[in-house]
């Protein structure tokens, strides 16, 4: 018998009396309040930043102001030129020297301050982790209330890789001292920009 068949047989033989299936999960819609304000509050609590709204400036100019020392800016969205084009052939490790990565999120989640990214948005998934800093463009009209709403998005079932990113990488593994920039990006800045 293969290990597969042995495991399935043991699981079947030992299964407790069947428990009923769970009815569809309610969406527990958040009680009122503007979604954007909730999103901003949670983003800040998770260590993320919100760029001051400045609709006059181009995005490239805004990013240059936010990161004056950045030498390598790699953008996965055509809205930002950056300094380093991301070709489909770029190997993940080639992004090791990126100072600022730029990406447009598919949507945000107010309950947690998260943004949704997949390989479609990132082009190279590692961009969101190897860059020292990440800038995320988000359309304020594309913010859902909570995670129940988020998981209704059909792209979860089609993306090879999908991630809810909430603030920068963080650790509190030494004496509970919070540090941003554990292994991934040191900072995450959300720029609210309609598509």
């Amino acid at each position, binding site marked *: 018998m293969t*290990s597969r068949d*042995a*495991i*399935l047989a*043991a*699981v*079947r*033989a*030992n*299964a*407790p*009396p069947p*428990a*009923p*299936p*769970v009815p*569809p*999960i309610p969406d*527990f819609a958040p009680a009122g309040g503007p979604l954007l304000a909730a999103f901003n509050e949670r983003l800040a*609590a*998770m260590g993320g930043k919100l760029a001051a709204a400045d609709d006059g400036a181009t995005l490239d100019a805004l990013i240059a102001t936010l990161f004056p020392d950045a030498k390598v800016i790699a953008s996965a969205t055509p809205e930002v030129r950056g300094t380093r084009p991301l070709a489909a052939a770029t190997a*993940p490790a080639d992004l*090791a020297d990126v100072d600022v990565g730029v990406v447009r999120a598919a949507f945000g989640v107010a*309950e*947690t*301050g*998260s943004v949704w990214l997949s390989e479609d948005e990132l082009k190279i*998934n*590692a961009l*969101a*982790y190897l860059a020292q800093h990440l800038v995320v463009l988000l359309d304020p009209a594309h913010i859902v209330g*909570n*995670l*129940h709403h988020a*998981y*209704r998005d059909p792209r*979860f*079932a089609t*993306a*090879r*890789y*999908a*991630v*809810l990113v*909430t*603030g*920068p*990488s*963080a*650790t*509190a*593994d*030494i*004496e509970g*001292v919070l*540090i941003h920039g*554990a*292994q*991934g*990006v040191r900072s995450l800045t959300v720029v609210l920009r309609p598509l």
Partner: protein
Amino acid sequence: MRPVDHAEASSHFIEATAHLEFHDRRLWDLRLKRDREAHRIAEWEELRNLASAIKEHTLTHLADYLEQFEAAAKTNGAHVHWARDAGEHNQIVYDILAARGAKTLVKSKSMLTEECDMRPFLETRGVKVIETDLGERIQQLDDEPPSHIVVPAVHKLRGDVSTVFARTLGSQPGNNDVHYLAETMRRNTRPYFLGADAGMTGANFAVAETGSFVVCTNEGNADLSANVPKLHIASIGIEKIIPRLEHLAVFIRMLSRSALGSPITQYTSHFRAPRSGSELHIVLTDNGRSQRLGMKDFWTSLKCIRCGACMNTCPVYRRSGGLSYGATYSGPIGIIMDPVFDIRKYSQLPYASTLNGSCTSVCPVKINIHEQIYKWRRVMAERNQLPLVKKEAIRIIGKVLSEPRLYRAAISATGLAIEHLPRFAVYNWLNPWGRQREVPEPPKQSFRSWYLKNRTGQ
């Protein structure tokens, strides 16, 4: 194999006063943060009920959902392997690596690979394994297992980490600055991410309908491990399956709130199919889970989502440290899981509990942890796994409690003893209870003698 002596091991932990006080405070702080986040959500209790019901339904139909998951994962282009036990798990992982000539493996935290003791297995076969979670890396470099399933090095103070890093990573000796230490780890680990032949993650959840699995982390190390090398191996316990994507919302809403008191982990990552040009291997592992499923009183422990809330709230865990349990899983959840792996070795663990029930009330999937701890005590007694002192004590107590005359004599004798005997006769090795506490002052009169005096004839 001698049973793990939790009380003896704890005594060493308790001796290090600064460590003990910090450990106790830090974990209680996590418990308070968990409460704050839970109370923000009106439907919290409803979510717990849903989470429990989803898990119970899945576990009682587990074979069907495993088959559905496997079929979907294969359609997605992932390779699916099955491991009956730790040995098979480790061999499968090694064979995948060896067939591709992979010599370095960056990995994120996985309790399953700890359970399988995978690292030494791979390392003796020439594979360099680098833990990339900060806490887990500290423990790896110090050659210790994790002491907590969420915060692996929570029993260490900054000075301890500084000493470990100075010895192993060449950081400045005596530099105890936490930012400096974390930055040392970041700079040391980065080249491994860039050069590793393979990456490994565990999984918090696996979704049957999509064949995808979810990894929840804060440091970004799991996403680097999975998204930089061309080979991603994921070790997944068979109990991690849930039926549908919509169920994920219930668990993701509660996992980090229960664990750390944050609304979600910084990264909640969903892996469905390999990146183009890469390989994705899933190792579905049993290692005692199917056996546990057949245990009437204990199968619901498989609902566990490894949040650690029961550990953070447990007064015994907070004051004894995870390492004193001598097992992969410590704290209340460890007590009810470990004996399935080795009933003799972990026969004393069910006594590392006050049975106060706090673990049960914070559990996001509503496992009746304290009741299972009590039931494990009964199993240990029935299987004759009690140490002689405990067995004798229970025999004598049983006799005294079943005979009123003996009971009355014992009560008045105990009162007299506490009142009149010198300290050394009351506080000695026969009375472990009195080691850290004062014995309560005996009442001047027992209830029975008061009753007989005041109520006779009425």
